């Protein structure tokens, strides 16, 4: 079983649209939406939810006004400025428990926090694990880890050969949780100065975790020179360029119709995505290929 994570450095580069197309092209993979902050894959794949569970992680401090003597130690101890006027601002509380531990009156409760809800679902292209964080909730990295673990179990049960993960943007906590231990990542980027900058940072991160990387350039024709520059950068950082997708209105049209691009179009972008999928399969299953050949 292989696990491929699609990431992007920055958001909005077309990660989810490309993941949805791969879902349609692959043979019943298990799908995971790890962009828990802005989970959009379900908008295309329209999952039918089978089971739902709450995601409980961490704690939040709550001062019991009746028992509080207003000594102020909690405020002195809190490094996150989460306590003012002997009230905890739940949005600012990191759940470190320092105030709870040091309150001389034991007047601070520390209930577990419900951070979101996650689902096991069926889609027309395979099973899917996805979640919704509560607004402003913490621990998105932990939720991402949980989703990947659950996807692994599901893939084993279903004997699926591939787990496709729609990763998180950025280079911080959630994306680190998205890629650790994966077999390969595909970085979707755009031919812009920002895209080049973000690609460099995310490839540094990926090589830090020693994960093989591939790169594809979306909307490559808005700046052809930059596309070549980006592919050269990718190669210099040991990432394999696997293709270019042209700017194509069919991509947004597919989104609006809740279809994957390759399901709804035979245009230039759709053909490019099919080509990229072929190239990725060669990379991802390279070892098995050699095996069969020998």
């Amino acid at each position, binding site marked *: 079983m292989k696990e491929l994570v699609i990431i992007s450095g920055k*958001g909005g580069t077309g990660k989810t649209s490309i993941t949805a197309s791969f879902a349609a092209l692959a043979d019943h993979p298990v799908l995971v939406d790890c962009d828990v902050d*802005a989970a959009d894959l379900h908008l295309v794949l329209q999952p039918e939810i089978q089971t739902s569970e709450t995601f409980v992680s961490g704690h939040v401090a709550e001062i019991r006004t009746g028992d509080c003597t207003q000594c102020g130690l909690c405020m002195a101890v809190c490094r996150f400025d989460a306590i003012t006027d002997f009230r905890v601002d739940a949005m600012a509380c990191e759940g*470190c428990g320092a105030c709870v*531990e040091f309150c001389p009156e034991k007047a601070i409760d520390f209930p577990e926090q419900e951070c979101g809800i996650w689902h096991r679902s069926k889609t027309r292209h395979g099973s899917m694990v996805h979640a919704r*964080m509560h607004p*402003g909730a913490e621990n998105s990295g932990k939720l991402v880890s949980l989703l990947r673990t659950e996807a692994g179990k599901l893939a084993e049960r279903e004997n699926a050969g591939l787990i496709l993960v729609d990763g998180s943007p950025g280079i911080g906590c959630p994306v680190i949780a998205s890629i650790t231990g994966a077999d390969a990542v595909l970085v979707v980027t755009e031919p812009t100065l920002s895209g080049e900058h973000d690609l460099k940072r995310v490839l*540094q991160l990926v090589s830090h975790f020693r994960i093989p990387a591939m790169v594809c350039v979306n*909307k490559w024709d808005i700046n052809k020179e930059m596309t070549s520059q980006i592919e050269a950068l990718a190669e210099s950082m040991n990432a394999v360029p696997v293709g270019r997708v042209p700017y194509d209105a069919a991509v947004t049209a597919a*989104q609006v119709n809740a279809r994957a691009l390759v399901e709804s179009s035979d245009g230039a972008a759709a053909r490019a995505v099919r080509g990229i999928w072929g190239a990725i399969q060669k990379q991802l299953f390279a070892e098995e290929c050699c095996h069969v050949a020998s």
Partner: protein
Amino acid sequence: MKIAVASGKGGTGKTTLSCAMAFAAQEKVTLLDCDVEEPNSHFFIRPEIEHQEQVFRPVPAVDETKCTGCGECARVCQFNAIVTVNGKTLVFNELCHSCGACVRICPTGALHEVDQPIGQIETGRRDHVRFVSGRLDVGQAMSPPLIRRTLEQADAESLTIVDCPPGTSCPYVTAVKACDAALLVTEPTPFGLHDLKLAVETIRDLGVPFGVAVNRMTEEKNPIQAYCEAEGIPLLIQIPEDRRAAEAYSRGEPINTVMPELNERLAQIPEQLKAMI
């Protein structure tokens, strides 16, 4: 006044809007790039960098001569950043939230805090724009401490525009709740609408007044407009889809240069948000 330029999802045009508003402003303005995982506004502002400083956060270190391996630090740590095995105390910096509880609880004074570098803050200038940008070191997971330090560079006297991190979790909340008002940037697509709804839900919890900007508008009547009307959210600007804008962006040029007709509108946004506070 501090204005957060934010969005539920990435790539909707936060940086484009932040920089365009900074250039269009008729007064002195400070631009804070708080998207510290992927700071991009310097490509468009092209400031002359005057100052660069390293940012640190405290993490615990163990003095083995004093540590008795009692395990109190590991017990108090909510983030599993400390473990005690066979009387030895080990710290995992990447899991540490720098809350200081372990140092405070240690009965023998065996723990003290050391500074761990997490990123840099750059400051510079271009014309009437003062520029400040935070940049997280690759491999660091915790962006909020660096975001908070970048936000401290706001100018209390004049207008401050904050280019926020995407999403709706800790980094977004850290940046937005420090601001007086927010502009939520979105696109007229199903993804854009879905993520805007999440951003709105979060910002309403935070109690920060806000308006919406639509980027890459193709038709005047779009799902974002209908949603804003139904929710009573002011739609402050719509920027038309234009290949010139995408090409300018790819070269690191602000949209002001290819769509100068937007300047007047952009300059009004801070005033409109001010009226909502």
